[in-house]
């Protein structure tokens, strides 16, 4: 049987074998979802692929890996299908192809982002202003970042809508959201089913290193985001302007957030260098690496900015930090960053499927 693309067809071939085997049932949510079906259409594979967290437990446990003629490598097959789905759902599609496949393009975006910020700082230098705003006025920042925030959000929204249609998603309830949220918050699917973790950096040895590093990145990123958001609220609602003292929401969120993001990204890079590239989507390995570096740089430059408050380094650091943020935001719908959104969508859909009331 052939599905919409060769990658989907290959994933379905492997899924059919798993469905007759079932040994990996206890590792993650992918298998129980799979075992509810007998035949798999493109949308089913897309859903399974986005549910897979690439923990690799099912590869090392599989008695059918190459050179066996069944040639099972489910983590890779699902990684390819996942990657292809993000490129298919992205809007506009051409942008996705460029950023997903090319670390150079992502790095290029970063350079352009930083350059843009330097230019803005020079061209729009404010006559007065405190802290960062002495370098770049608040209005200028907003003029740059509001579209840089809203545009990717719109693109992601379009992508998610396409995803939802392909996997046959139905109306979302609070219970589905809570279930998906719990799963994402603890990264349950990287826990190996019993808390022993992934098979990532040292073949079949189970470890929680990746899960913890990934959690640090996720929570670090969310804290940094909360920091910026609280700063925005303070600015507009309470008319309180940066720089904020240590005991203020932006700093209380931002400092631990920056530390977690930097440490987590460093950990992920270390792990990624040790892991077998053949169990992911090898073509995007480079771009994924640059993406993690970009995340780490965002956190680190934010911390540096705080550490060097009041010194001559601020203009350059601010340009680097804001440039990184800009590149991160703008590339979100087309970089590995998108996976967070699709992952949550897949978890919500999985909650729906588990919940028998919703077909």
């Amino acid at each position: 049987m052939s599905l919409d693309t060769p990658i989907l067809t290959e994933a379905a071939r492997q899924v059919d074998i798993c469905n007759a085997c079932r040994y990996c049932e206890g590792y993650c949510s992918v298998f129980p979802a799979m075992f509810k079906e007998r035949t798999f259409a493109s949308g089913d594979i897309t859903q399974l692929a986005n549910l897979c967290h690439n923990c690799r437990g099912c590869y090392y446990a599989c008695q059918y890996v190459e050179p066996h003629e069944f040639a099972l490598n489910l983590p890779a097959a699902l990684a390819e299908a996942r990657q292809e789905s993000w490129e298919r759902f992205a809007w506009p599609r051409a942008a996705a192809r460029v950023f997903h496949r090319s670390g150079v393009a992502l790095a290029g975006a970063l350079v352009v982002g930083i350059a843009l910020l330097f230019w803005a700082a020079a061209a729009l230098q404010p006559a007065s202003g405190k802290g960062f705003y002495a370098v770049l006025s608040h209005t200028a920042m907003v003029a740059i970042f509001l579209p840089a925030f809203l545009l990717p959000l719109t693109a992601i929204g379009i992508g998610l809508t396409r995803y939802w249609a392909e996997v046959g998603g139905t109306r979302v309830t609070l219970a589905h959201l809570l279930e998906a949220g719990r799963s994402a918050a603890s990264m349950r699917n990287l826990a190996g089913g019993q808390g022993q973790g992934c098979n990532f950096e040292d073949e079949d040895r189970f470890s929680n290193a990746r899960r913890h590093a990934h959690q640090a990145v996720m929570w670090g990123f969310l804290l940094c985001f909360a920091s910026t958001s609280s700063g925005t609220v303070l600015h507009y609602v309470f008319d309180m302007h940066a720089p904020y003292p240590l005991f203020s929401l932006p700093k209380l969120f931002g400092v631990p957030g920056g530390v977690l993001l930097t440490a987590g990204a460093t950990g992920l890079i270390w792990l990624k260098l040790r892991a077998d590239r053949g169990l992911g989507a090898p073509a995007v390995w480079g771009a994924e690496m640059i993406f993690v570096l970009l995340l780490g740089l965002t956190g680190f430059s934010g911390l540096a900015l705080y550490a060097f408050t009041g010194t001559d380094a601020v203009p350059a650091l601010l340009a680097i930090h804001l440039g990184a943020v800009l590149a991160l935001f703008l590339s979100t719908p087309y970089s590995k960053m998108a996976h967070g959104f699709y992952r949550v969508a897949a978890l919500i859909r999985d909650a729906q499927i588990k919940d028998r009331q919703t077909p």
Partner: protein
Amino acid sequence: MSEPYDLIVVGGGNAALCAAIEGAEKGCSVLLLESAPKVYRGGNSRHTRNFRCMHQGPLSVLTGSYTEDEYFDDLMRVVNGKTDRHLARMCIRESEKCLPWMEAHGVRFQPSLSGTLSLSRTNAFFLGGGKALVNAYYRTAENLGVTVLYDAEVTHIHLDGNRVTGVDVRSKGETATLQARAFVLASGGFQGDIDWLCRAWGPSARNFLIRGTPYNRGVVLRDMLDQGAESVGDPTQCHAVAIDGRAPKFDGGIVTRLDCVPFSIVVNNQGARFYDEGEDVWPKRYAIWGRLVAAQPEQVGYSIIDSQSLELFMPSVFPPIKADTIKDLARRLGLPGETLKATVDSFNAACPTDPDGSFHPTELDGLATEGLDPPKTNWARPITQPPFYGYSLRPGVTFTYLGLKVDETARVYGADGPFANLWAAGEIMAGSILGQGYLAGFGMTIGTVFGRIAGQEAASHVA
């Protein structure tokens, strides 16, 4: 490879690993010789899914209790009395202590897999299956300092009176003799040696498929038997089940099983039925169908169902052959169309007229044919709803039973009594307990219990 070891373990599956781990924990320097390359390490053990375990109350993932007597009765029923009762009971009792030991050495269990609920009380399933178990044991063994050599086939055991003095190992084209003070043989059965199967079974064995590893060729078993070791078990006995005829010759493993037989009619390559497909529920019948198919021309059978039955059994790894008419299905399967049509028609005519409501796929429903030979005594529902589907069936050998005779300390016996420093565990001695028949999950129990004992005994011999 020059360093002399205390203990050499021959084989790299469950039994070998249990012996190596026990030996190393008791202070031995251990060398494990596995004939397969690393990707295929673990023999048949890497195809397994569970372990049958006695328990007086809930234990790990096992529910309820499963007493020694009940376990023993289950065994007696399948082996038809052909067992060493003393060894069997000992093995059953020890299984209870094995489960916590397995967990302590890295094995993880999971609740019984979907579709296998009937085993949730008696069989503990491995999280990730047998290969995950094997991986965990290799990690544990290596952490304990066990040296593992892959691609290392033992070709000969050197005997001097009742002592083993060394083993010949062929690795990367070279053969060397390695010495040690104690030896454990855990190199499986001989089902990978098709010529040997043919000598035991006749030429029809060429058409058998081997469900597990091609590396269990019985080289060590043959060598020991040639040197006068005492054997148990019948060379013509093996565990053989009916599997998908399209399965690979070796290593097809669990996915090639087919559970469609009870809801089908099974014909041979002449298009004729030959046995009651509905005699009992499938878990109690799948093992006899290996032999039934083996007795048919070309050792092949064809299971025919209609669209009503397609979803009554676990999905198959290869899709069924599909056609809109029985004749067309016969053509696609390479069967004589007229005969198959006639066989299906006479089966349909012998089915009860109004089966609706009394057909129950999960239990013996008593829906039997009338006046048909052979009869179908349950699930006799006419095959009338197109499309029609067909699967080919072949005998799939799980493992052979001929083995080395051991006692309750796993010690191997020669013509003049026990060897001083030689023990055996797993498939290579399973015939001591399994004279015929098979109890799901018992192979891993035998390997774990005797592997551990062999390792402990060898270690105390060395100490």
